[in-house]
């Protein structure tokens, strides 16, 4: 028994990594090889798929568009959620608990429900096909999430910290920026991560609210049926690149996420 302890985790990791490996594997193959033969590694290794993505503006603009609205959304969500979460964690006011719960219920509706109203509204006021349109639409889901996560982290900071700062002569804003925000930095990291990830993988709203100028990468990927048929290798390369930002962000917040789980807020 003892000598086979490594077996289960190894199997688990193999199963987990298999689709990712297969995606990576495909991205270095030509479409002909993907369709014609079964091979565990690229027999005809090529970087053409990646080269195409990095040189063709319709491809790399997809990434730039996505990153633009995702970053916008993350910044807006976290900066709006910070004071809101502070209020929820520090003050008692009429209906505070109901309001807090109501925020969460926003996340219970499928995004599709909001696609039509957003589309009509944005078309009417000229926001259609802009980055900010998608960023604002995603706020509907991300702000409640960020408030929820940050409130947990902020409530873990004793109220006496605020009071000590006031007694020391700090004004509210000076305390908030110089002491409180660094104290809940882990929470901000976790909240930003989740906003980033949600906005990055959300497809429906992003697709509905854009056409050309702000078209996200995920939308570009679904339109790869060209005259030459399906370009599977290219699609795989695009998919691989889509994983990269998420992997980056998760690497930076990996320690904080464990803390978030411990607080029961992630």
């Amino acid at each position: 028994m003892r000598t086979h302890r490594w077996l289960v985790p190894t199997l688990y990791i193999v199963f987990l990594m298999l689709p990712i490996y297969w995606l990576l594997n495909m991205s270095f193959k030509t479409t002909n090889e993907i369709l014609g033969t079964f091979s565990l590694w690229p027999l005809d290794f090529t970087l053409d798929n990646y080269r195409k993505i990095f040189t063709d503006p319709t491809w790399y603009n997809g990434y730039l568009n996505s990153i633009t609205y995702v970053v916008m959304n993350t910044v807006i969500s976290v900066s709006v959620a910070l004071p809101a979460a502070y209020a929820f964690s520090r003050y008692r006011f009429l209906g505070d608990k109901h309001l807090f719960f109501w925020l969460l219920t926003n996340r219970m509706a499928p995004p599709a429900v909001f696609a039509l109203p957003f589309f009509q509204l944005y078309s009417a006021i000229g926001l259609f096909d802009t980055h900010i349109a998608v960023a604002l639409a995603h706020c509907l889901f991300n702000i409640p999430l960020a408030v929820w996560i940050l409130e947990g982290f902020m409530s873990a900071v004793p109220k006496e910290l605020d009071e000590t700062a006031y007694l020391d002569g700090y004004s509210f804003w000076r305390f908030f920026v110089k002491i409180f925000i660094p104290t809940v930095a882990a929470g901000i990291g976790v909240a930003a991560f989740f906003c980033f990830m949600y906005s990055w993988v959300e497809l429906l709203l992003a697709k509905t609210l854009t056409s050309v100028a702000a078209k996200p990468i995920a939308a570009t990927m679904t339109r790869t049926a060209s005259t030459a048929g399906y370009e599977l290798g290219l699609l795989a390369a695009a998919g691989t690149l889509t994983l990269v930002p998420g992997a980056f962000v998760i690497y930076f917040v990996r320690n904080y996420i464990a803390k978030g789980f411990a607080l029961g807020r992630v």
Partner: protein
Amino acid sequence: MGIELRRVTKQLGSETHIYETNLVLESGEFNVLLGTTLSGKTTLMRLMAGLERPSSGEVWHNGENVTGLPVQKRNVAMVYQAFVNYPNFTVFDNIASPLRVARVQADEVRRRVEGIAELLKLTPILERLPNELSGGQQQRTALARALVKDAALVLLDEPLANLDYKLREELRDELPKLFQDTGATVVYATSEPLEALMLGGYTATLEQGRVVEYGPTVRLYRSPGSLASARVFSDPPINTAQVEKRGPIFFLTESVHWTAPAGFRDLADGHYTIGVRPHHLTIGGIDQGVVKVRARVLVAEISGSESIVHADVEGNLWVSESHGIHPFEVGDIAELFLHVGRCLYFDNDGSLIGHQADTASRDRPH
């Protein structure tokens, strides 16, 4: 002048936390607020600091009405039971923070922080972050921050309660010395009568949101003005019983009685209440000025060199505290010495009639 509460009350919803309180604390002195949990110590401090507004009444500080003044504008420092420091600042920056907010010159900040750090033995850890420190060091940092700004009012809310025994003793000895020369009015909340006695200065006894009595600590301990005050200021709890005075004799029961001590002879006949501190009800001891009572042992415990016996004494549940080890079994009959000369005598509404001053002066607490 110091800090003064004028007809201050504090209500939260339908709950009254502080009943109407008038209190003038001696300035430049060590003032102890003594009371059990929920007696209102912390609320009183928060009212003094301005962290909470009184529901009615006024707070005056050095002859100035500061009732509505924001905390930032008052020269107040506070140390909490939980160790509160800015987690993202080093110890040095923590101590320096009130000075920096007040825009003190950088070299002056350095000089003052280093001086305080030396005093509180923080010099070797000035560059560390609070989370890397032991509880004692964290609380020293908080104390240093309170000291460095030369606040006129320093509030210490059970600052030693979360420390282990050794550190507590050590810091308790240092505390009064630290504030001695600052001229600050120090308010120290504690639930331990012994701590109040060790810190000295002045004490206010608190019970359920009311200040029962305020005065010099030792005076308050020796002759508490009321039974309520004596109850707060006694650990283990003070023993009480009804006695009847007939002529020159006090009767606990028909068989247990004693001659009224000097000063009580002219008291009108009738019923009174006596308060007997546990160490005035002993197993053996001096034979003078005592009455022997028979007691049935209910619980006997030995803590170090002290024996504490809970016993039924003529129908009263009393606690006795004596030096030395006296093993008893539950149900044993013990003979206890009741030091009648050191009893506190209260009339029926609970206010002190008097006690024997000459014996009291020899009376060392514990």
